[in-house]
């Protein structure tokens, strides 16, 4: 295993997260790679709660809470203003949840991606509107219970393929990462930090509150998500060049589903539908990446 260089932390100890939340862990990894010459805007979501209530803040770098749908546009304006004042070296991060990215923020995200604005957009994806009480978003996976899908069904719509949408904009860099694979996540942040233009990192952040698993199992759930290929790790360069990241040998999806209360009601037939959907997506991704399975972790 790669030994991590100890970098300066950009967050203060303590946060307003639920027990077992992995969002702040993701924020910590991303920011410590980016360093102190960074500014962050976050749209409404778990991230804005976790960041703390006035006068507390978890962020050591300048941090702005923006409107729900405008993380990308706010970051783009910040970028423009900094550039015009000779601060092109300062990194601008848009930090948004799946609701703020897949749903209400999609339009402003598309605008910034299409203009290739020089920002790093990070979507922390916990697969529903968690801080408002677990309502379905378009990032919610097939068959998942939420408070607005009380009787989850595999006839529901599957999770939106967000990275494919961003890739269609032909942006320089896209990565799918998971907080349970911190070396991989940090490497992707370093890659993104070394590039200019619009960069998008999609991070799966398991959520005990909404996924209904034990707080101690957060990291495990992320690992199972990746091992089962429910959430695959990969990079996309220039919207075309797909590269799979090391993920380990593929395991059945039931190992992932069975540990979470949100999938509790699923019948074996429904689990089989989910397995087939995951297999199809994985095959597609392998095809895009030229058949490279990424090898063992």
């Amino acid at each position, binding site marked *: 295993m790669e030994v991590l260089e100890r970098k300066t932390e950009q967050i203060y100890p303590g946060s307003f997260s639920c027990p077992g939340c992995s969002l702040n862990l993701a924020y910590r990894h991303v920011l410590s790679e980016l360093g102190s010459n960074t500014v962050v805007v976050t749209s409404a979501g778990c991230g804005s709660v976790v960041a703390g209530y006035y006068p507390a803040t978890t962020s050591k770098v300048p941090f702005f809470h923006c409107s729900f749908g405008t993380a990308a546009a706010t970051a783009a304006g910040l970028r*423009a*203003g900094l550039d015009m004042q000779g601060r092109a070296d300062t990194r601008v991060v848009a930090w948004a949840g799946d609701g703020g990215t897949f749903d209400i923020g999609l339009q402003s995200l598309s605008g910034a991606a299409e203009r290739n604005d020089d920002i790093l957009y990070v979507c922390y994806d916990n697969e529903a509107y968690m801080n408002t009480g677990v309502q379905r978003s378009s990032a919610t996976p097939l068959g998942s219970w939420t408070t607005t899908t009380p009787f989850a069904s595999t006839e529901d719509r599957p999770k939106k393929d967000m990275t494919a949408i961003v890739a269609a904009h032909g942006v320089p860099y896209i990565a799918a990462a998971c907080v349970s694979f911190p070396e991989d996540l940090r490497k992707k942040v370093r890659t993104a930090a070394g590039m200019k233009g619009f960069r998008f990192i999609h991070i799966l952040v398991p959520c005990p509150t909404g996924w209904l698993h034990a707080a101690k199992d957060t990291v495990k759930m992320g690992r199972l998500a990746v091992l089962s290929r429910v959430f695959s790790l990969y990079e996309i360069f220039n919207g075309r060049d797909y590269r799979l990241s090391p993920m380990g040998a593929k395991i059945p999806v039931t190992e992932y589903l069975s540990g979470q209360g949100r999938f509790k009601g699923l019948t074996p037939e429904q689990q089989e539908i989910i397995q087939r959907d995951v297999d199809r997506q994985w095959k597609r991704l392998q095809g895009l990446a030229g058949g490279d399975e990424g090898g063992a972790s």
Partner: protein
Amino acid sequence: MKKLMTGNEAAALAAMLAGPQVVAAYPITPQTSIAEKLADYTARGELRARYLKVESETSAMAACIGGSLSGARCFTATSSQGIALMHELLYWAAGARLPMVLVNVNRSMASPWSLGVDHNDTLSQRDTGCLQIYCETAQEVLDTILIAFSLSEEILLPVIVAMDGFLLSHYTEPVDVPDKEAVDRFLPPRKAEYKMDPEKPCTFGGGVGAQVLYELRKRMQADMEKAVAVYEDICARFEGVFGRRYAPVETWNPHGAALGIIATGTLSGTVRAYIKHNKGKADAGLVKMRLFRPFPRARLKEALSGFERAVVIDRNLSPGSGGIFAGEIRGAFYGDRDRPPIFSAIGGLGGVDVTPASVENLAADVSGRAPESNDIIWMEG
């Protein structure tokens, strides 16, 4: 040097002279030529700004919020549905106390859609915490934008400069163009005390307890109340440099008439024309409201003190209530024993022509009305 130009050209020229570092805009009729002209200035290097061609007005305002947070001077222009789409973001900008200037070319709100002017679009932004200044001429548009930047950066709230769609945005008028050096003297670069600076990191806009929000709103009100005097100081400074005089409320009563007609925007010009050409028939004076937010209560009362009657022409309608200016103006006199009767007229919605003849009819109508009459006077039909 005088040049012929439209209100939109005057707006773009003023923005160029003010030197915003971030411009973000989305096209909408009748604002579009401002966005185009600024793109032209930027492309030619006459304006050194980052111009974000955003995908919506929501993002235009968000980009100005981001730009302003960085400490940069920011400008945007929009109209009608565009400012309505920005509505949420105007609260964010004002709440975060971010200076910027927004030019709104007034146009009625759909549905049904129409291109003509009325003021419902900006007046719907009344409670956002943005200042609002209404213009009568292209010269006033140019000058007001320069004043607005200064005002915004001192009060730390966004300023909306409003001009009537087509009647002002697209008609050509002579405009005295100030030279760049004089503008730079009047309006030096923005110096932001609070900004997103990695050397002095701060968190902005995070969750607060109820009491903090309450205190912040109280402070905003206090600053708004101060803003009338700040506007007057800046106008005095402007007059010192450029020789043109502006005030929150202006009175023009050449015949010493008993009736004051209160108007805003290009309607003021129509009332002027009526007064000029109708001496002795149904005399009236003009009270022109330039500032709407902050509401210049004291100045308005002074302006109306010489009149026995007043009528407000509102180019807007709050359905279920009536004219928005009239409501506010009547409210300003609450508790005053010796206030003149204030009548309320609605005119020119959707860009319907308000002519000197219709103003004459209004003046005649008002002179015969019972002082306590609260009915809306519809100027056309």
